[in-house]
């Protein structure tokens, strides 16, 4: 229950937002402002789109180094051959065209965080009034002995929307019955917290439905709990009895060494390696290298931000959204990135037009498929409390539930994917 005083303040706040909303689309005085958005994933593409809509006089340039990419969401469905790769592939140039913003396919090599200028490998030098950085994650290749970027195709993480997703699909298809598949789940924080466990579920589905129920899937974990863990473990026992074994860190589950030539994987304190037919090693993660070079990261390896706007606390005028940002308790998910992108776009548009900054109110929903037609979900509503992001409400799918609910969630997941990719990427 709210007090009368708080009701009044909230009403005033909303009035301020309505005024901001009015001034945003009709801003006249802010002509000539320039914003560079780096990264055309869910965060960057969405931010560019809504900056253009909310502040039409602002020149928005979207820069992405990859000409094409696969979305993280639903990539596990491609690995399990439940979807074609084309259905999750996006073309970066078409993303910009869909949103009416100019797009540059080029790699940003340097950001000058003081002068708000960038350089690209293609030789472009650009300046802006604000720079939004949505660069995603980098793998920490120093964390697991024997695992290097140049050899990682042999034990594909499939976590960066590149060809490794398709390698995993091909390798899963070729796994003989009785072999061992190992998925290494990274320590927190990392991109897509339920992703390793959805991968285990859908691999089990693909194997069970192709007569290979004797394949053992080991989820070797660098932590002692994980997103939706009770739901996943309950459903693994129900749907794929005996196929999936989860090893917590405290039970020696952390992968410490691999041999990418032989397929051997060593867990902490294990005397002998596990011989795998397929290992998907998802390494520990940090903010993408560009964020580190631009001095946007702190000692954690991630980018601290003001949660009211996602402006960097290290450099004014630079904003960091999506997986690279320190935004706990929000997960590093596609939906969270889009929600942060919309807040950030509103905050920049308000700054340009002199309007009241928006209240930071954010959402997240993540679906995980556990079979071809059953899914579970986690959702949260977030706001700033005492200067920090806090989850005001949220929850998970119920643990005991009938098939009807799981199937409804799977249909919702498909509709969610279509909706959020339409919002972020248009017809690209």
């Amino acid at each position, binding site marked *: 229950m709210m007090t009368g005083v708080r*009701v009044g303040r909230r009403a005033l706040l909303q009035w301020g937002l309505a005024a901001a909303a009015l001034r945003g689309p009709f801003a006249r005085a802010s002509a000539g402002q320039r914003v560079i958005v780096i990264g055309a994933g869910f965060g960057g593409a969405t931010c560019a789109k809504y900056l253009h809509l909310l502040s039409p006089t602002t020149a928005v340039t979207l820069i992405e180094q990859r000409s094409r990419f696969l979305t993280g969401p639903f990539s596990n469905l491609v690995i399990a051959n439940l979807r074609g790769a084309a259905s999750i592939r996006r073309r970066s140039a078409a993303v910009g065209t869909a949103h009416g913003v100019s797009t540059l396919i080029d790699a940003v090599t340097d950001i000058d965080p003081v002068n708000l200028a960038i350089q690209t490998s293609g030789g472009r030098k650009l300046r802006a009034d604000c720079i939004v950085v949505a660069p995603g994650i980098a793998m920490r290749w120093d964390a697991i002995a024997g695992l290097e970027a140049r050899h990682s195709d042999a034990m594909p993480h499939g976590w960066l929307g590149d060809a490794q997703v398709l390698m995993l699909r091909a390798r899963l298809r070729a796994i003989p019955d009785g072999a061992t598949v190992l998925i290494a789940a990274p320590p927190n924080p990392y991109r897509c917290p339920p992703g390793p466990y959805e991968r285990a579920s859908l691999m089990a589905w693909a194997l069970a439905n192709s007569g290979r129920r004797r394949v053992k899937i080991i989820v070797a974990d660098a932590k002692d709990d994980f997103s939706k863990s009770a739901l996943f473990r309950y459903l693994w026992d129900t749907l794929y009895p005996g196929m999936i074994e989860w090893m917590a860190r405290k039970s020696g589950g952390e992968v410490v060494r691999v041999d990418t030539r032989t397929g051997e994987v060593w867990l902490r304190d294990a005397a002998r390696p596990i011989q795998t037919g397929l290992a998907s090693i998802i390494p520990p993660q940090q903010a993408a290298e560009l964020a580190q070079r631009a001095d946007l990261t702190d000692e954690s390896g991630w980018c601290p931000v003001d949660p009211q706007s996602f402006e960097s606390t290290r450099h004014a005028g630079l904003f960091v959204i999506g997986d690279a940002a320190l935004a706990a308790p929000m997960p590093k998910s596609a939906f969270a990135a889009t929600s942060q992108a*919309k807040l950030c776009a509103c905050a920049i548009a308000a700054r340009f037009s002199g309007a009241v900054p928006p209240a930071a109110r954010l*959402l997240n*929903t993540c679906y995980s498929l556990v079979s071809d037609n059953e899914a579970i979900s986690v959702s949260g509503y977030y706001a700033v409390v005492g200067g920090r992001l806090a989850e005001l409400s949220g929850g998970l799918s119920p643990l005991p539930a009938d098939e009807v609910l799981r199937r409804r969630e799977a249909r919702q997941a498909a509709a969610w994917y*279509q909706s959020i990719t339409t919002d972020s990427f248009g017809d690209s």
Partner: protein
Amino acid sequence: MRMGSHLGSLMRAAISRSLAVVLASAAPTHAATPLALSCLGCHQPTVNAPELPALSRLSRDQIVLALRQARDAPQPGSIMARLVAKLSDGDIDALAVELARPPP
């Protein structure tokens, strides 16, 4: 008491009138606050799936009713219930103004 003050009512009326101007614009969406824009992540107008209806095809009253039901008497397993549990009546009314189809 949720958003029940006279001041609140006046403000809501003022917001409704002000946003009606925005509604008349040709922009793809008239939503302009972070929370309303985040709703569009699942509820894209051009997708309009049975499970995730386009809010721009619903009236304000329909949205207010749906959100209050999700908050006060949720269906088992409802995702919306998790998201709206802490919204006030005023929050819900403001979202409906931003997201619903323009009144006739």
